[in-house]
């Protein structure tokens, strides 16, 4: 026997694990971020509509105000999880070739982290007023 001995049966090993190897935690997190996303998205629409057509100085000032900045940071954090899980689900549904699947999942993570961090940095810069 060259393979290491396992006490657990194969069934025990795979039970509760999906294609992403993490069971139902993503299913639940997708629901949590959906519920949180409802008020956050409505708030975001209100913010965007209120800022439309205003000059850059007013936009920068309002985006950086504590309440607006906090709402947008919450929206970014919530959306980051939601879009990451959602795209992962799409990739796992359609991409079957192992190497390409792995690279796609990696690209998903990179995209979400970069977009979220860049957005959050912009909000923090506006909020702390380092212009």
């Amino acid at each position: 026997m060259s393979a290491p001995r396992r006490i657990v049966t194969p069934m025990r090993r795979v039970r509760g694990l999906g294609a992403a190897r993490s069971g139902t935690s993503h299913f639940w997190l997708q629901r949590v971020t959906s519920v949180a996303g409802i008020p956050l998205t409505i708030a975001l629409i209100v913010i965007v509509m209120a800022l439309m057509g205003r000059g850059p100085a007013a936009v920068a000032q309002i985006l950086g105000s504590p309440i607006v900045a906090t709402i947008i940071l919450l929206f970014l954090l919530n959306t980051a999880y939601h879009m990451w899980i959602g795209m992962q689900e799409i990739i796992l549904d359609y991409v079957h070739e192992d190497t390409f699947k792995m690279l796609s999942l990696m690209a998903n993570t990179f995209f979400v982290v970069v977009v979220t961090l860049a957005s959050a940095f912009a909000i923090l810069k506006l909020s702390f007023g380092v212009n």
Partner: protein
Amino acid sequence: MAELEARARAGASRPLSPHLQIYKPMLTMMMSIAHRITGAALYFGMLLFAWWLIAAAAGANTYAGFETFMGSLIGRLILFGYTWALLHHLLGGIRHLIWDTLHGLEPAEREMLAAATLIGSIALTIVLWVVGYLVTGGPR
């Protein structure tokens, strides 16, 4: 037995379950597909949102470039599609949350919910754009 296993490994001609094209398109099915497509569109739409925030943080000149793009015909079309995708995914998400509670799953109810998602998202998009143009003159 060994032969069967070898064939299974090789992915030999095993029968597959029928795929999408064999079914008559139904509203609930189209809404399910639309939910996924709008989700994927919003995923890449976050680039636009990031651009907006970064432009605002970068200063007046960069922000003017963003406004020029959003005010152009293609920019307005993208923003209009973005609005509808966001509202459709939002309403579709609420529909899924209702289904998660095991409500609204009867045939008539789920048809009604699917129609409400579609009509609601289109109506809300138009309302938001009318309000947007009335209040602010639209994206510049």
